C-alpha cells in the first residue's frame, strides 16, 4: 500500500507510516449523487472482499450535535463555523479514519477538507489560513470531484427535496434575497473554488451530469486502477 503522509505534519499521536489501507475521497455538492455513489462504491468494494469504512462531515462524536444546533440558530460567525467544522474533522480523522487505515481498510470519505476549504474561502476566509487549519490532514490516495452544472444541480435539488437548503444556497452570505438566484450564484462560486483546489491538490473531476450508472462505472474504473497499483506494491 502507498506510504501515507499528512500535508505538512501529522497531528500529535498520529503516525502515518503505521497506516495501511486506502483513503478515497468523493467530493461534490449536495445533489451531485455523492451519497449514492459512495454507497455503490462501498458495496462494490465489499463484493471484491475489501473492508470498507465510510466517513463524512459533521459526524464526529465530539461536536456533530453541537455544530448542528449552532447551525439552526443565527449567531454562528463564518470563522466560528470554520473552526467548529475543523474540530469535527480532526475528531473523525483521529477516531475513525486513522484506526480504519491502521486496520488496513479502505476508507471512503463522503467529502473531505476540500469542501470545507471551498466553503470557507467563498465566505471570505483567507485561503492560507484555511489551508493551514487543515494542514495536519492525511493526504488521500485518490480524490474524485463530482461536477454537475449549476442548472442540473438546481433541478436535482428541487426534484428530490422540494426546496433549497439555506446553507447550500449560501443565504448566510447575503448575496441575494432570492433563494434560487443565491443558490446558483453560490454553487458557481464553490465550483470556481474547486477549480483552484483541483490544481493545488491534484484531484480528478468526474462529469456527474451523466447517468448514475455511467458515472459509477467511471469511478470504479479509476478506483480499480488505484487499487491495482496499491496491491502491486504489497
Amino acid at each position, binding site marked *: 500500500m502507498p506510504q501515507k503522509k499528512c500535508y505538512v505534519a501529522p*497531528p*500529535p499521536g498520529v503516525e502515518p507510516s503505521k497506516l495501511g489501507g486506502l483513503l478515497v475521497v468523493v467530493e461534490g455538492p449536495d445533489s451531485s449523487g455523492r451519497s449514492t455513489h459512495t454507497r455503490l462504491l462501498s458495496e462494490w468494494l465489499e463484493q471484491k472482499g475489501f473492508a470498507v469504512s465510510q466517513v463524512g462531515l459533521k459526524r464526529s462524536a*465530539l*461536536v456533530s450535535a453541537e455544530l448542528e444546533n449552532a447551525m439552526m440558530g443565527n449567531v454562528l460567525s463564518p470563522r*466560528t463555523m*470554520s473552526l467548529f467544522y475543523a*474540530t469535527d474533522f480532526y475528531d473523525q480523522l483521529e477516531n475513525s479514519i486513522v484506526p480504519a487505515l491502521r486496520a488496513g481498510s479502505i476508507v471512503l470519505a463522503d467529502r473531505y477538507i476540500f469542501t470545507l476549504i471551498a466553503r470557507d474561502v467563498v465566505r471570505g476566509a483567507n485561503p492560507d489560513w484555511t489551508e493551514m*487549519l487543515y494542514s*495536519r490532514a492525511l493526504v488521500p490516495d485518490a480524490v474524485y470531484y463530482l461536477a454537475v452544472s449549476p442548472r442540473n444541480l438546481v433541478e436535482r435539488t428541487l426534484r428530490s427535496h422540494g426546496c433549497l437548503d439555506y446553507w447550500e444556497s449560501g443565504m448566510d452570505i447575503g448575496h441575494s434575497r432570492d433563494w434560487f438566484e443565491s443558490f446558483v450564484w453560490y454553487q458557481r462560486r464553490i465550483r470556481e473554488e474547486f477549480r483552484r483546489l483541483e490544481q493545488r491538490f491534484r484531484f480528478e473531476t468526474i462529469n456527474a451530469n451523466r447517468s448514475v450508472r455511467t458515472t459509477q462505472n467511471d469511478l470504479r474504473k479509476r478506483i480499480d486502477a488505484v487499487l491495482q497499483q496499491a496491491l502491486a506494491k504489497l
Partner: protein
Amino acid sequence: MSNHEQVPGKLIAVEGLDGSGKSTQIYLLHQWLQGLGCKVFFTEWNSSELVREATRKGKKRQLLSPATFSLIHATDFADRYDRQILPMLKGGYLVLCDRYTFTSFARDSVRGNDPEWVRANYGFARRPDIVFYFKLPLEIALSRILEGRPKLKYFEAGMDLGLSPDIYDSFRIFQSRVMAQYDLMADEFGFTVVDATRPIHNQQKIVRGIVADRIDLARFRGKV
C-alpha cells in the same frame, strides 16, 4: 496576530498559571474601571454559549485529543471574538480578557501541537494593547492549588499526556511545562510581568498604574 485595522477600543489580557491570582486582579481592575465610569467589557476563557456544551462533554468523557483540544478552544474563542471582543473594540470599549490566545499557545504546545499551527489558527486575533503576566515560582503556584488536595480535573492536570498515573504528579509536571511556555512568550510577545508573590493590593496598584499610564482613560469615560 493581526492589528491591521485601527479600532478606538483597547484590549487588556491577563495570563498566568492556575493559582497565579490573575482572575482576582482582573476582577479588581474591572471594578476600578467601572468605578471611574469607563466603558468596559469583561470576557473569560472558555465561556461561549455556543461551544461550551461541546467542550464540557469532550472533557467529561475524555474525548479530546491534543488537536481537537486546541481547535475546540479556538472555536470558543472565535465565537467570543467575532460577536463580542471585536465589536466592543470597534464600539470604543476597554475589553478585559481573563486569558487570551496565549493560554492556548502555552497549553497546546505542551500537548505536542506544532506552535506554528496553533498560532496560525488564532491568526485572526488582535494583539492586546497590554498583556499582564502574573509570574510566580512554580512551587508557590502549585501549593496554592494543591493545598487542600482538591479534586483535579483530567485535562486540567494534563492527564491526557500520560506524564504520571498520579493526578497530582501529573498536574505538577504539566504546570511546570506550561510555565516554561509562558516564560518563553513573555519576550516573544512583550508581556508586562507582574510579581504575583506580592500582596494582592500591591499588585493591583501596579496594574492600575500601568493601565492609567499606557491608556488614555479619559477617552473611555462618560457617555455610556
